[in-house]
């Protein structure tokens, strides 16, 4: 085989391999989504975030408008501090309501933003005032059982009276 044709094939092979790595990184992985346009950050205080994870989507009316970039625990209030990066194309009013929702019955958790009616919009670094915690199944079951038990107790008291 000619030396030059061999060089050509090897060059094509190396380029195809590196191209495949790039495709995997950008198209399949999440490297492309990090640098997607300008964004601003919002902070939300949640009593309980349930199973929310970093990089979970932030949706408004079902449209993905941003991602969760960091989750911390506030040492003053012992609330969860969720930091989100929101696409700067989307502006939300001051009285926007943020709640942690679940996609499907056992799907992943995301933050849902429901816009309010205020004229002023949230700026970068602002805190979302109205939040709603995640529904934790164990707590719900616990509360349900507790309610049942106290109902029966009341019934029992009524009988003995």
């Amino acid at each position, binding site marked *: *085989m000619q*030396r030059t044709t*061999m*060089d050509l*094939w*090897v060059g*094509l*092979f*190396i380029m*195809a*391999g*590196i191209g*495949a*790595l790039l*495709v*995997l*990184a950008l*198209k*399949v*992985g*999440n*490297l*492309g*989504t990090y640098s997607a346009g300008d964004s601003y950050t919002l902070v939300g205080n949640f009593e309980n975030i349930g199973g929310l994870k970093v*990089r979970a*989507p932030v949706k408004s009316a079902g449209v993905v408008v941003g991602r969760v970039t960091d989750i911390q625990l506030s040492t003053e209030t012992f609330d969860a501090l969720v930091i989100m990066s929101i696409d700067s194309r989307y502006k939300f009013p001051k009285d926007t309501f943020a709640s942690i929702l679940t996609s*499907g019955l056992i799907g992943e958790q995301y933050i849902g933003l429901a816009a309010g009616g205020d004229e002023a919009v949230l700026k970068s670094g602002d805190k979302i005032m109205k939040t709603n915690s995640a529904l934790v199944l164990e707590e719900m079951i616990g509360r349900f059982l507790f309610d049942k038990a106290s109902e029966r107790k009341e019934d029992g008291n009524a009988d003995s009276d």
Partner: protein
Amino acid sequence: MPRRIVSGIQGVGHRVIDSIWRLGYASRFFLLTLLKSGTSLRRFGLVIRELYFTGVLSLIIIVVSGLFVGMVLGLQGYETLQRYGAESAVGTMVALSLLRELGPVVAALLFASRAGSAITAEIGLMKATEQLAAMEMMAVDPIARVVAPRFWAGVISMPLLAALFSAVGIFGGYLVAVVLIGVDEGSFWSQMQGAVDFHYDIVNGVIKTFVFGIAVTAIAVFEGYDASPTAEGVSGATTRTVVTSALAILGLDFVLTSFMFRGMG
């Protein structure tokens, strides 16, 4: 009777000592290859020639098997996931299983049987026809001239081949799941992008392929160089290359996986 028992014990001892000696010999050979690879880096044309034989000629088998593995993953993933109404997660399943496990492992197994066996047979035949001895007579070091370029070509081409395998496999999964079955295209890609992390999944997979590439080519060049200089010896060495490489790949894969993926994602 006691003599037979003694000779049986001797046989066991002989085998153990022999295999440990071979392991030490192989490690020293590996170190020697690394030390003498300066020449092949200075004369990079040697490596390019070997890249053609190990990399370019393995392309067809890698691409075709990648496509089929991805298509099978798409079918099986859909079949299982649709029971839970989660068929849009089929892209995630195909991508994660290819990037983390199947891409590196299957590509390395194919590489060992396609390129590793060829390297062993070539070096073994060079030894059998006394070409290596002739090189030494001419004061050309056969490790620097023959072994090191093949080793580096294997180490370079293995990650590229595995990346191509995974990329083609994901395309195969796309063909079956989206084009053939009709899973929603948007959720196929977006769920995949949401679940695949660049550092956790892709970089770890690439590290695996580097380790497999070093293991497979080191075994292949050693078996070739160590082969008995007969037709039988070369054929035995080629078989040993494929068997030892396969075991090394699977064993190393378990060790690497237990270090890399601990359910922290």
